[in-house]
């Protein structure tokens, strides 16, 4: 099933809200949305994942690629609102050591 994705950019911070199940079928949609923000060289991208009920390694790979691309122009990509099962995927792959993870968007915005 397709993802629901919305984004807003304000004060150099983009909030990308993703909802649905992120797998090999749907992750290209998330990738395209991140790439749009990367093209605009938005300094801080907050990916809000509270609506994501499932994520596999293709979703994780999409976020890693986004982080890499942001870092190339000295930007950053952080994640917020992870559900327990999605957080577990981050922990299993030790990506919790790489990504800045926030409990929600407001916290992610404040901790610039």
């Amino acid at each position: 099933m397709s993802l629901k994705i919305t984004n807003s950019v304000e004060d150099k911070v983009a909030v990308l809200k993703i909802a649905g199940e992120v797998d090999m079928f749907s992750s290209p949609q998330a990738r395209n949305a991140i790439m749009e923000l990367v093209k605009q060289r938005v300094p801080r991208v907050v990916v809000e994942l509270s609506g994501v009920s499932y994520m596999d390694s293709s979703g994780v790979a999409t976020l890693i690629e986004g982080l890499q691309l942001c870092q190339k122009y000295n930007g950053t990509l952080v994640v917020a609102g992870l559900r327990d099962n999605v957080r577990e995927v981050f922990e299993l792959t030790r990506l919790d050591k790489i990504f800045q993870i926030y409990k929600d968007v407001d916290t992610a915005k404040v901790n610039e």
Partner: protein
Amino acid sequence: MFVKRIVGTGLGSQQCVNQIGYEDMPTTECEYQLRIPSETDNLELIRDFVSKVAEKVGFKSDDVGKIELACDEACTNVMKHAYASGQKNGKESLDILIQIDYDKFTLVVTDHGRGFDPDAIKLPDMKEYLAQLKVGGLGIYLMKTLMDEVDYQMQPGVRNQVKMVKYFIDKKNSKLIESEKENK
């Protein structure tokens, strides 16, 4: 689309159905089978099937999630590698067989694609992986981390299978508890 078949009636039954040819298949109490086109938009349906069976046989939600993710990664590998792109052409299918035994849940994913040499695939060194921020290649690592056993049988172009096992009793924790008892 999927089949449930009661194979044995109790513990120790020697009756075994081996429909899609996995060798040395253990005695099986019950099995569920799904044959589905190898298309990425079917991944959600595959996950639903696997997670509902795992729930039904009594796994807690944490383990259901692990089985679901391991199966997704195995099927994604088939769609990406064995059958190239996972694009719709209606010709390629994969089989998912779940066998329930008194002590374990066995998941067998079968395809008839190109296969690969599982020994040639090194598990990522996660330290190096993270240092270089590599993209992709985590599927087999996750499968091996999430399940108790993962085993491949490859016959490229004929039949490739990955068999994954989850025990109903967490063997890793049981061993820990046993060694703690021995130390006391």
